[in-house]
């Protein structure tokens, strides 16, 4: 059995039925990392020794019939997740030597559930990017085509899960950073509702849109991880006190009769025909399962990106001001080009004489965009649309022009502006075998509903069974 091609669910069952041990599972993933990471560059740190130690502990617990939700499972953490005793760089040279004194709340919960951290994954430095090309530690290559980007900013987690180097990769989604690499790498990516998962110990990018999620091979796998990470945290006042539902139970439910909204603004002339076609085919599958497709409009869509850009860069400029090279990290001159540009944009948007025109106008625009979604959810249960307007692109194709790169986020940023959850799931391939994703968005705290729709679709299509053929 090839242990690295298992889903999380299969791995948990295999461990429970003693088909293999956690040590074997961890070893097989680490040897795959060693074989392919030189090329793909998904990991910036590998925690081999500690992971094997944890795996031996997990095997002892499994022998005693312990049933923790992720017991013995090797996972990879995006390197902007603060890990106690393990270098956490956010892929920026500013934090090249930063070894945190504490764990993020989400990590505390994952560890308590028995998950084993096998390494830290690459990203666009600080989460600033849609392609992985802004990492200070080099590009991550797309396992499906090494000449193309993985999408970003959770580039390493996307590649790692897709290439069988980890069963789960964690991420952060501020404007699409989980859903984009999920779509480009043929994996499932969840951006939860803002505040569903604690931000404590996650290196802040834009505090009012940062959403803490993960990338997995299947929808069930995603639901299992969320059931561990979700919930109120006294260390993050923006986490909601809403109960965490039994996602695994709900996702098996019937979807017939559900109304799925198709926003016309997301299928316009800016969207590649191949991508739109794949989404329409996916919608047809859902229609055949008894869903009702409803054409809707989100009239402020074209303003969502510029509104997002102002809010995000304003918060970036404020959050990155803490890096003074005194308490930890290096001096500010170590910031890369992209971080400097965003700091400059945000500082300008907030500065005296411009704040009304940019920052405050954007906060009001945000209200209008939220109203669009609320109106839509009176008519439909979920909204379905593409994740990207185009297929995975080649390195440097968009990086040369910052504005062109920023506009990659047009379909993902709206959910960050509104705070709503969104789930990206594989929706097939182009003729050249490049992955395409579709996203399902819903009202706040509707992750269970999104899982249900996505699971039903996944059971019909099983795109996750397709694996990239890796070259060393």
């Amino acid at each position, binding site marked *: 059995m090839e242990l690295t091609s298992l889903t999380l669910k299969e791995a948990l069952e295999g461990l429970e039925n003693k088909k293999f041990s956690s040590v074997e599972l961890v070893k097989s993933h680490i040897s795959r990392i060693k074989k392919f990471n030189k090329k793909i560059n998904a990991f910036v740190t590998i925690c081999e020794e500690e992971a094997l130690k944890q795996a031996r502990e997990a095997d002892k617990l499994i022998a005693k019939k312990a049933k923790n939700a992720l017991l013995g499972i090797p996972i990879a953490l995006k390197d902007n997740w603060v890990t106690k005793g393990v270098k956490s760089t956010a892929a920026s040279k500013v934090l090249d*030597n*930063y*070894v945190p*004194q*504490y764990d993020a709340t989400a990590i505390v919960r994952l560890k308590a559930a028995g998950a084993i951290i096998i390494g830290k994954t690459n990203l666009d430095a600080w989460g600033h990017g849609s392609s992985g090309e802004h990492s200070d530690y080099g590009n991550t290559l797309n396992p499906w085509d090494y000449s193309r980007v993985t999408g970003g900013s959770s580039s390493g987690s996307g590649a790692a899960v897709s290439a069988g180097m980890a069963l789960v990769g964690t991420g952060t989604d501020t404007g699409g950073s989980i859903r984009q690499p999920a779509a480009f790498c043929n994996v499932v990516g969840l951006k939860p*509702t*803002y*505040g569903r998962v604690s931000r404590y110990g996650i290196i802040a990018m834009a505090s*009012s*849109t940062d959403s803490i999620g993960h990338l997995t091979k299947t929808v069930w796998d995603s639901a299992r991880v969320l059931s561990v990470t979700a919930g109120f945290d*006294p*260390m993050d*006042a*923006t986490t*909601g006190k809403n109960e965490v539902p039994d996602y695994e139970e709900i996702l098996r439910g019937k979807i017939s009769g559900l109304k799925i909204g198709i926003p016309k603004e997301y299928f316009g002339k800016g969207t590649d025909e191949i991508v739109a076609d794949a989404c329409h085919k996916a919608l047809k599958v859902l229609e055949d399962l008894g869903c009702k497709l409803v054409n809707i409009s989100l009239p402020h869509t*074209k*303003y969502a990106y*510029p*509104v997002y*850009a*102002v809010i995000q860069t304003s918060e970036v*400029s404020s959050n990155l*001001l803490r890096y*003074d*090279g*005194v*308490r*930890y*990290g*290096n001096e*500010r*001159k170590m*910031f890369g080009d992209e971080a*400097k*540009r965003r*700091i*400059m*944009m945000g*500082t*300008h948007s907030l*500065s005296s004489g411009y704040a009304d*025109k*940019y920052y*405050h*106008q*954007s*906060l*009001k*625009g*945000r*209200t*209008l965009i*939220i109203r669009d979604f609320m109106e839509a959810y009176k008519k439909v249960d979920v909204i379905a649309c593409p994740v990207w307007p185009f297929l995975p692109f080649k390195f440097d194709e968009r990086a040369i022009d*910052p*504005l062109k790169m*920023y506009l990659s986020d047009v379909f993902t940023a709206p959910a960050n*502006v*509104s*705070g709503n959850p969104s789930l990206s799931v594989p929706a097939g391939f182009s003729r050249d075998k490049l992955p395409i994703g579709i996203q399902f968005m819903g009202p*706040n705290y509707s992750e269970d509903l999104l899982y249900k729709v996505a699971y039903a679709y996944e059971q019909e299509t099983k795109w996750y069974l397709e694996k990239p053929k890796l070259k060393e």
Partner: protein
Amino acid sequence: MKKKTLLSVENVEHIADLAKLTLTQDEQKKYKEQLRRIFDYIDQISKLKTKKVIETSHPTNITNIFREDKIDESKILTQEEALSNAVKKKNGYFVVKAIF
């Protein structure tokens, strides 16, 4: 009303100063051009009708989250831990550059 966003090198210097960034002359020129293009694009938000619209600073509308004013000892770093990442330290203090 001017149509295009006008950013001078002085503007860029001013922004960099507020942001505590030291830019080379080449960077100043580059960011001046790039920021001009980006804000030309962003300027379309002025068309949003926002006269009677309230601002949203937080998307899930949680308000007034308070906690007891008690110290959670499990979250306290020891002096040694707090200083563990400092580039320069002396007698249990962070060493910083002189301000004046």
